[in-house]
Each structure stands twice: as structure tokens, then as C-alpha cells.
């Protein structure tokens, strides 16, 4: 069996789905953040795979590069927020931070 672009994309879709489901079902902010990382990674995989089959330049890889940078920033800020929330609520459950309702 030859591995083609479709396989990479399918894999990436599944990982994205797992990340999304994780984000939707888990209430632990830390794990939700990790789910986001999963989704970002799946996108990176897609970008890199497409780039492999259009190798005239590095557009896809470069996007992935930026995504990694943004993901790092996001993780940093996100975790800072987690700590702030923890300090406020003594909890990292996302549904404890529901003041912004109604």
C-alpha cells in the first residue's frame, strides 16, 4: 500500500476530531488546552503534508512554523490564565468560571 496525501489528511482529520471532542467534553482547563494543542498539531500535519505534494516552495511548512510559534504563545498565555483562575476560584474547572452569563 502506498501512503498518499489522503492518508495524512485523514489522520489529521481524526486527530483534529479527537482534539475537538476532548475540548468539548472535558471540563479541566488544562486538558482543554491540551486538546487545543492537538487540534493545532493536526492542522500542522495537514499543512506539511500538502506542502510535500507541492514541493515548489515551503509555504505549507512556513505556515506550520508560524502555527507552532502561535501555539507556544497561546500555551504560555493560556496557562497563565489557568493560574490566575486557580488563584481566584481555587479550581481549574472551566464551568466554575461562568460569571459571564445571562
Amino acid at each position, binding site marked *: 500500500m502506498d501512503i498518499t496525501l489522503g492518508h495524512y489528511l485523514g489522520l489529521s482529520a481524526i486527530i483534529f476530531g479527537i482534539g*475537538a471532542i476532548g*475540548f*468539548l*467534553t472535558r*471540563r479541566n482547563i488544562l486538558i*482543554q488546552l491540551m486538546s487545543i494543542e492537538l487540534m493545532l498539531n493536526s492542522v500542522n500535519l495537514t499543512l506539511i503534508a500538502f506542502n510535500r505534494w507541492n514541493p515548489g516552495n515551503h509555504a505549507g511548512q512556513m505556515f506550520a512554523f508560524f502555527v507552532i510559534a502561535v501555539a507556544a504563545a497561546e500555551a504560555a498565555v493560556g496557562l497563565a490564565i489557568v493560574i490566575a483562575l486557580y488563584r481566584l476560584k481555587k479550581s481549574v474547572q*472551566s*464551568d466554575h*468560571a*461562568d*460569571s*459571564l*452569563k*445571562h
Partner: protein
Amino acid sequence: MHSDFFSFGFDPGRLLLWIVLLPLFGSIINGLAGKFASRKMVSAVAVGSVALAFGLAIACFVKLTMLRHAAGEEGEHARILYTAYEWFSVSVGNVNVPIFVRFVMDPLSGVMALVITGIGLLIHIYATSYMSEEPAYYRFFCYLNLFMASMLILVLSSNMALMFVGWEGVGLCSYLLIGFWWENPTYAAAGKKAFVVNRIGDFGVLIGMFLLVYATQSFEFDAIRHGAANLSGATELAIGGMAQADHHSINVSMATVACLFLFLGCAGKSAQIPLYVWLPDAMAGPTPVSALIHAATMVTAGVYLIVRLSPVFVMSPVAMSVIAIIGASTALLAATIALVQNQMKKILAYSTVSQLGFMFAAVGVGAFSGGFFHVFTHAFFKACLFLGAGSVMHAVHAHGDADIRELGGMKKFMPRTRMTFLISCLAIAGFPLTSGFFSKDDILLGAAFVGTGAWADYPSWVGWLVLVMLVIAATMTAFYMFRLYFLTFEGDFRGAHGEQHAAAPPAPSHPGVEGAAETHALEASTDAHAVAHDAHGHDAHDDHAHGHDAHGHGGLPHESNGAITWPLMILAFGALAVGFLGLPHWAHLPNIWEHWLEPVSARLPGVETEASAGLGGTMMLIGTLAGLTGIAIAYRWYMMQAGETPAALAARFPRLQAFLMDKWRVDELYARIIIKPAEWLSNFSSEFDKVAVDGGLTKLPAFAAQAGSWAFTRLQNGLVYSYGAVMVAGIVAITFWYLIPHPNLQSAVQGADVKYVAATGYGYEYRWDVDLEPGFETNWDTNTHEMTASFERAARNRGAAVMNGRPGSPPPVIQLRHGELYAFNPRDFATTEWMKPNTDGTPPAMTWQDGKLLIRVNDAEVRQDGLPTTTPTISLAPGESVTIGGRLIRAAGVMRGTVEVRNVFGYVSRESVEVTIENAMPQAAPRGAEAHADLRGGL
């Protein structure tokens, strides 16, 4: 006066203007400056302006008579016209009808103008003395002059719109003058009542006016009178709306409807059933007002209007008989009420209503000149009676009104008043050779005349009925007037008012407040019903006493001064003498009056003969007898006895007496059936507004918004995964949208070709079917998102007919589909008779064969290329046209394009589009492109 005065180039019309303007200026001057002027100045302005107006009126009148004589045979149309300016205009249908401020003096308005200014002058003089103690002296004369101006506008205007100014103007003045002593709430309420009731009448005048103007396209009385002939039965009136709405129309002649509406107005102004209720209450006003407005002039405006429009009224015997019956009923009703009343002015008020009923009965039976003659004579004797009553009240200091049971023996104290009063009473009773005798006789004769069936269209029973009612009413009139006279002037003085007033403190500073209690107490004991009715504001007779003419020299009654007695004497002379202007025609005596009014009072259509001497003599005898009977009974009961018989009758029939005393309880009835429901309706509206309208349009949407807002805030629960779930819903939608290809097929006609364009998308492949044959012509290809098809090649078995349904509008397109014979919108074709029916397997009337539209035509007019043809089957290539039965039919072609689009996932979507090509043939020039903009693009 010499004729020179009238012939030196001066426009007599301008005088007409000044007749109106003088009292108006008098009013304005007194209104603005009267407060700072002395009473002398005020009365000088008021009386002076009216006197000048009277002078001018005489001058114009003389000029008019001269014109009439000078014109000889055509003198009938002699009149003086003056157009001041164009006021405004209204649309009648598509015509602009201008309304002018234009005055006219013709025989009718001439007489009225003389009566108004003449009697008005006398009453003004009278009022200078009568009202001399009134603090708001200037206000009184301001109103009175304003009334004179309005009344003169009413009678002198040459068109209905301007007349309406006067019509409403006198209503306003009446309102102001009835409520002159407004500090008494019942007086003020009486004023309001008068105004509102008059307004109901004005509504009738408005609608009647609109109807007449609608029919004759003019506001001018002359034009309406000339156009009256068109108003008879032939004209159908669609009550619902426009004339062509046949099923809404009721077969009533325009004249009848217009006349009944106008009569409603006249009934309001002239106090006829059902709108008479305001007049008795109007006696709350000062006595000169009662005399001038509510007896002599304003209330006769209704009769004036009917006489003025008599050619219209005679067109409708129905309306005439209604008027006659209502007039006679009013005469009778008011007379019965007057029988038992005890207040001087109240009796006179009901007497006025009754006499007005006589006048209406007269015009109702077609005796226009007789009815108007009664207006004229009545003005004299009724004004005299009112002023006489005022003089008596003045003498006994019974302010507002006087109870005749408290009076008596006044002839000793005030001989001149008594003489004039007696003369007027005789006149109103129809004593031979007094003015009332002649005018009443005219009326009775008129009723009897139509009763004999002289006017074929007119129900003769109405004549007899009216006659009987009027005779009874005349008897009663004589009775109650002489009851009034005997109780007031004969016998001994029974009153204690003088003493009471002598003891009372002089001229109270707040008229209407002090003094009310004592007289009211007196009244309460004598007239128990009065108290009960005060709540309705109509029975405002005696719970007041004004300091306005408390002279402070009490004691016994005394004769009034010259300013009061001289007008009385002049009026009494008139009451005696003016009857001779209208000597009976049947006795071959010269009837100046009738001759004078000939140009304005309409002749009854189809009536050639005149009343015979026998009928005339009989009626005169009956009338005289009726009057004398009434007088005799009154004499017997009140002079020979001391009123025992009436007292016994009252004791025997207490309920009848109470019923009459309560004026038939009409006010109560109205309160129950009109005022209460109206108030209820108004309460209901106001509540409905709060609850239903505001609730439905404000509160309900507000509640809905709040509820919606509540529901949506529930979604904002602050939980991340809820928001996430909503996001996923969006992802689902977008995903599935992108999984399936979307052709979004568009088409465009390019000459004889049709170009189809499908949407492009990543990895899309296309295949096309554009030839109307089954199956796709092209194979899957990624590059063919556009496809062009030729019309000529493709349109073979399908087509459309383009029909020009309505001229001027773009043609609706009717598409024929496979297996369809024809498709018509019944709205576009009144009938399809021109097509052969599609029976027994014959080819369809319209079909598409071999690229041509075939039409088989029944016997209809067919034109092809402008030439008539007789071919039974017409064959049209797309773009060609034919006219069948006046309808343009053009053949057109239909193209269909289908595309299938496949995306990378292998999903396939199909879309078709059908195009109607109206002018695809190369020889046909493209029609206006904008007319058929792509509907999808447009909408």
C-alpha cells in the same frame, strides 16, 4: 330718497359688504377696546354700527325694488351681487370649484336682511337699557354685534360655503350668549348643549351641501337652484361609494337624500324634532338674546335655507312630507309642553319651537312664501313678546325668568308693556287681521291645498294630517299665550319679589352666586320637578338671580323706560300691521309678499291651479275659530275662574301633567339613548386604547422582546462546552455544504444562442445536457463550466406563447410544457372562445410542432402582419406574432440546460434551468432588454 342716490355709478354691491362688515367692526372694536370705554361709547358703537347696517340694508333693498321694477318682465332675476374675493376652491370630481366670498341681495335675502338689521336694531336699543347694570356690558355687545354680522353673512351669502360661515358663526354666538353668565354651570352647559346640537345639524348641512355640490358642481345657490331639476328620481345615489358600485346603491333620489341631510341641519338650527331640545335651555341667555337670536332671527335660518333651496326640495316630495310631518309634530309637541309651563320665558321658548314647527310644516307642504311670511310676522310678535317678558321681569326684578304664578295685575303698573304684549298675543293666536292671522292662514291653506291632492306626487294624507295637527296646535297656542297674558297682566299682583328685593342688599358683586338660594328655595316649593332635572342642565330656569339689572329701587313693579318701551311699541305695530303685506290671494286681494318672493320660492312641479276661494275661506274660518277657542278657554279658566279647572285637571291627571311639565321627558330619553351610549363609547374607546391598542402594539411586543431576550440569555450560560456545542453546529453545516458540489447554474441569451454557466469549484467536473434530447452530450471534464447551445438546433418540440394580456403592460409569458395544451391565466383573457375546443382527439387548440406554434382559431378576428387572414390554423415560428381577437400572441421558444457537477469526493449534483427566448430568430430585433431583467437577479 331719490333714485339719483342709486344711480351715480356707485356699486350698490359694496354696500352689501358693508352691511356685514359694520357689525363685525363694531364687534371687534367693542371686543378689543370695550373694556376701557364707557358704556355710552360701547352702546354707541354697537347700536351705531347696527343702525348704519340697517340704513344700508334699506338702501340696498330700495335699490333692489327699483332694479326689479326697471327690469320689468325680467325683474324676477333682479338682484345685487358683490364678489369680494375668491376664498378657496374644492375639487368636485375632477373639476376645481372655486368658492367666492360673494354677497347677494335678492328678494329673499333682502327681506331677511331688513328683518335682522331692523329688529336687531330695536333689540340693541332695548338692550342698552336692559343690560345697563351688567358688568360685562361691552362683552355682551361684542357678542351681539358678532351675531349680527354672522347672521347677515348667513342670509346675504350667495353660496352655500359662505352661508355655512354664517350658519356656524351664529351657532358660536348663540353658544357665547347662552353661556353669557358662565359662572352658573348650568348656563354654561346649556350653551355647550346648544352648540353641540347645532353641530349635529351642521353635519347634516355639510353632507347635504356636498351632495348638492357633487350633483351640480357649484356652491352658488343660483347654480344649485338651476341644477335642481337634475336631482330628481333619475339620479341613483350609491350610498356605499362611487356611482358605478351598483349593488351598493339604494334607489333614492339624490334630492331626497340631500334634502333630508339639509333638513337635519335646519332641524338643528331651527329647533325641530329631534334636535329642538337646546332651544328651551337657551333661555338661560339674557332676554334680548332670547328675543333676537332664539326667536326672531337665528332660529328661522332653517326655514330660510329651505326656502332658498326650495327648487331642490320640491324635487323630493318624500323629503317634503317628512319635513311637513316633523314640523307639525314639533308644533304640536311644543304646544302641549307650553300648556303647563309656569315660567314666562319657558312658555315663550316652547311657543317659539311650536311656531317654528308651523313654519316647517308650511314649507313642508310647499307653502314656501307662506312659511316665510310666518318667519317675517313671527319675528315681530315673538320679539315683542320676549322683550315684553323682559320688561315685566325687569319690573319685578325677576332675573333670568319669572314665574307667572307670582305675577298678575301688571297692566296697572306697565300699561305700555301690557298693550304691546296683548297685541302680540293676539297676533300669535291668529286673531283676525293681525299679522299672525294672515300668515297662519297661509300655512293652513297650504296644508289643505296639498291635502286636496293638488300636487300629484305628494301624499295627500300628509296634507290633512298636518292640517289637523296644526289646527290643534293653533288652538293650544292661543290658549297658552292667553293663559300667560291673563296670569301676568290681569288680576291682582301676587308676587312678593319686590319686597324681598327691597330688603336684600344692593347689587351683589358676584352675580349668579348670591341670591340663588332664596329663589331656588321658592322654586323648589312650586315646581318640584325642576330640581330633579337640574342635573341634565336643561332646566336652568330659576336657580339664579342676577344683579345685572337690580336697580335698587324696589317696591311695586313699574313701567320700563323709553329705551325698552319704544322698541316694544314699534314691534307691536309691526305685529299688527305687517300682515297686510300678505293678504290672501284667493280673496283677490293684492298679496305683495307672495309677489315679491316669487323669484325665489319654487313652484310645486305639476301644480297649475291655485287654492279656491271656498277652501281659502274655510281655512280662514277654521284658523280663526281655533284661535278664538283657545282664547275663550283661557279667558274662562283664568279670568272667570281663578284657575280651578286646570288645577282640577292636573289633580285628575297628575301623571299627564307631570309628563307635560317634564317636557315629555325627551331630555331624559336623549340622555339615555344618546348621551349615555356616547359616553360609554368614549369610555370604552379610552379604555380600549389603553388595553387593546397600547397593549397589543406596545406592551405585547415589549413582552415578546423580553421573553425572547430571556430565552436567549439562557443560552449564555457561561459554560465553555455549551458555546463549543453551538460552534460545532456551525461546523456541521459548513462541512456538509462543502462536501456537496453546488452548480448554481445561470443562463444568458446571446443572440440566437443560450449560454449556460455553472459555478467553479476545487476539483469540480462537469457534464452537460443542453439539447433537449435525453442523455448527456459531454463527458466528465474539469474545464467545461460554460456551455453554449444553439436555439435553432434545440427548440423543436417545446415552446411558449407570449400573450399581450392587457394593453400597456408587458406581456405575461405562458409556457407550454410537454403534454400541455395551453396554459392561460383567466385574468389575462376574458374568454378563450376563440380557440377550438380540444375534444374527440382533435389536435389541441394551441400546440408546438416542429419548432412552430400552431394555433387553431374559432371564428375570431385574426390579423397577421396587420392583415386579416382566414386560415383556420396559424403557424408561428418563434418570434412571429399574430393578433387574435385583439390579443397579441407571439411564439417563443423554450430551452433547457442541465448540468451535473462532480467534486473530488465523488458527489454529484444536478441542476437544470429553462430559458424562454422570445425573440431568438436572427431577423427579430431584440426587444427592450430592461423589460425582462432576470427575475432572480432582480429580486
